[in-house]
C-alpha cells in the first residue's frame, strides 16, 4: 500500500468540470490545479463532447469520477462499462478512478441514484470481492466515496464508517472522502461527524470532496447547488491534516455561479489546510 500511495500525487485544489462553465473556461483558461470529470459524460462518441475534453486535457490535469458503477448492486459487474471507463482513462491519463460505495441498479432497471447499502457482514464480503475485481481490471488506483444517505436499514450490523473502512482495507483500495456527505448523513442519522472520520483508515484517503447541500428542516439533501457551509469546512479542516494532505475538489452541479466564483469557493480550502502546513513545519 505504501508503495502505491507514493505514486499518488496531491494535485492541489480542483473543481468539478461542468458544461455550464465551458465558455468561461475556454475563453480565460483560468489557472487552476486540476479538474474532475464525471466519467459517464465522456464515455460516448459525440464529437463536441470529445472535442471539449481534448481542449481541457491540453491545458489541465484531469481525474475521473464515476456515478454508475453500482458496486453493491445485484447484477454482475458490467465489464462493457468498465472497458469504456478504462478506454477513457487511457485518454485522460487519470491518476486514479473513483466511484461510490452504493448501489444504483437491479437487472433491467437503472435508478440513476446513489442508493444506500445495508451495512451487514454479507454485504461487506460481497462488495469487497467486487472491489478487488474492479481494481484489478482498471489497472489504475481505484477509490470509493462515502455517499450521503437519507435512510438506513434495520438489518444493519455495523456503523457506516466501520463498513466503509473495512471495504477499503480488505479490498486494498483507496478512499475518496466526501466531507459534505459525512455532514449530511450525520444530520440525517444523528451521529457525530467525528465518530465517522476518526474511525476511518485515513491513510488510504487520496482525495476529498467538498460541496454544498440543501437543508429541508427535518432532513438534509446532497444537492451540490450551494456554497460549502461552515460545519463542513470545520470537518474538512480536521480531516485534511489526518490524511497527510490530499487532493481536494469542490463539486457544484446545479444553480451554477460563475466559474470564477466557483473557483474562489474552492480556494477557501487553502485557509483550512493551514493545520497541515503548521504540522509539517
Amino acid at each position: 500500500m505504501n508503495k502505491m500511495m507514493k505514486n499518488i500525487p496531491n494535485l492541489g485544489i480542483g473543481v468539478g468540470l461542468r458544461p455550464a462553465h465551458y465558455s468561461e473556461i475556454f475563453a480565460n483558461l483560468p489557472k487552476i490545479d486540476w479538474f474532475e470529470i464525471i466519467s459517464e459524460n465522456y464515455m460516448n462518441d459525440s464529437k463536441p463532447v470529445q472535442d471539449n475534453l481534448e481542449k481541457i486535457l491540453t491545458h489541465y490535469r484531469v481525474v475521473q469520477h464515476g456515478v454508475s458503477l453500482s458496486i453493491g448492486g445485484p447484477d454482475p459487474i458490467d465489464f462493457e462499462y468498465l472497458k469504456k471507463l478504462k478506454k477513457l482513462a487511457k485518454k485522460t491519463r487519470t491518476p486514479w478512478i473513483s466511484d461510490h460505495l452504493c448501489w444504483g441498479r437491479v437487472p433491467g432497471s437503472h435508478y440513476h441514484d446513489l442508493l444506500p447499502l445495508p451495512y451487514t457482514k454479507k454485504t461487506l464480503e460481497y462488495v469487497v470481492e467486487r472491489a478487488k475485481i474492479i481494481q484489478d481490471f482498471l489497472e489504475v488506483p481505484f477509490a470509493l466515496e462515502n455517499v450521503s444517505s437519507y435512510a438506513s436499514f434495520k438489518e444493519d450490523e455495523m456503523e457506516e464508517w466501520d463498513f466503509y473502512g473495512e471495504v477499503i482495507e480488505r479490498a486494498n483500495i483507496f478512499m475518496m472522502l466526501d466531507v459534505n456527505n459525512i455532514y449530511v448523513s450525520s444530520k440525517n442519522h444523528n451521529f457525530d461527524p467525528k465518530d465517522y472520520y476518526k474511525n476511518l483508515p485515513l491513510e488510504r484517503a487520496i482525495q476529498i470532496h467538498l460541496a454544498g447541500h440543501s437543508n429541508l428542516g427535518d432532513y438534509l439533501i446532497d444537492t451540490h447547488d450551494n456554497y460549502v457551509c461552515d460545519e463542513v469546512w470545520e470537518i474538512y479542516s480536521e480531516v485534511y491534516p489526518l490524511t497527510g494532505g490530499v487532493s481536494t475538489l469542490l463539486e457544484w452541479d446545479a444553480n451554477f455561479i460563475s466559474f470564477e466564483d466557483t473557483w474562489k469557493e474552492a480556494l477557501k480550502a487553502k485557509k483550512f489546510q493551514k493545520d497541515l502546513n503548521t504540522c509539517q513545519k
Partner: protein
Amino acid sequence: MSKIDSKVPIGLYTLQKWFGKVITTPIINIDEKGIPTIDDAKHKEEAKRLITPNKFLSSDQRIGIYKMQYWLRLFELLKEDFPFVLRLFGNDLFEEKIATPYLIKYPPNTWDLNFLGEMLAKWIEDNYQDGSDKKLLYYAAVIDTAYFQVFFAPEFDQTSNISEETKIYLQPFVRVFELDADLFSFREKFLEQDPNYWLENDFPRLSKNKKFYTVLYRDYNKAKYSKISKGEYLLLKAFEMGSSIEGAFQNFPEKLMKKADIELWFKTWSENNWLTNQKGLRS
C-alpha cells in the same frame, strides 16, 4: 430473466428489488414535509419492517426521499431533452401526462442517460390518447429527439475516392425532414418563452398548407436547422439511406432538375462534411 451476480447475498437482492419497486412507483401525493407518500399499503408495511425511522421522519418518509429523487431527476432530464413537448403542456402537465406514463413504459435501463427519451415519439404514437392534436405532439417529440441525437452523433471520415457507383451516406449528425407545417420555426419561437408561458398565451403562428423541407445538423457545439429545397431534400434523403450519386438521381424529378444547382449543393455538403463513405447509424 436477467442475470444476477452469483455471489450476491439473496437478502441483499431481495431488499434491492423491493427498494427499486417502491421508488419507481409514480408519485401520487406529497406530504406536509414535501416528501412523496408511499401509497401502496404493502410497501408501507414493508418500509416499517425494513427501514429505521428517526425522530423527524417515519420509515416510509425516509424511502420517500429516494422516490422523490428518482422521479425529479428523470423529469428534469426529459424536460431538458424535450423543450418543444414541454411547452405544449407546461411543467406540471408534462410530468403527469407525458413523463410519468412514458417512464413507466420505458424506465431507464442503462447507465447512459443521453438517450432516456429516445422512445418518446414512439410512445406518443402508440399510447397517447388525450388531447386533439396528437400529430403536433408526435412531431414535436420527433424533432426534439433529433436535436439531441444530432448533438451526440459521431462524425465519420469525409467521402473520398468517389466514383458514380460509390455508395455515399449522410453523416449521423445530419437529419432531413419533410413536414406539412413549419415546425422548426415554430419550435424556435416557442422556446423563446418559459415552459408555462404558453399555458396562458396564444401559440405562435404555425405556417401550414405546403411542404417544408428542413435539414438539422451539428455545427461545432450546436444543433442548427436550415430550410432546404425539395431537390436538396430528395438527394440528402437518398444518402441518408445510403446511395451512389447515380442512384440518388434515378428517381429525381426532371422538373426539379431545371432549378437545381447541384454543383453548389455538393460543394456545400462537402465543405460541411455531411457526406461519408461509412455506413451511418440509420442507414
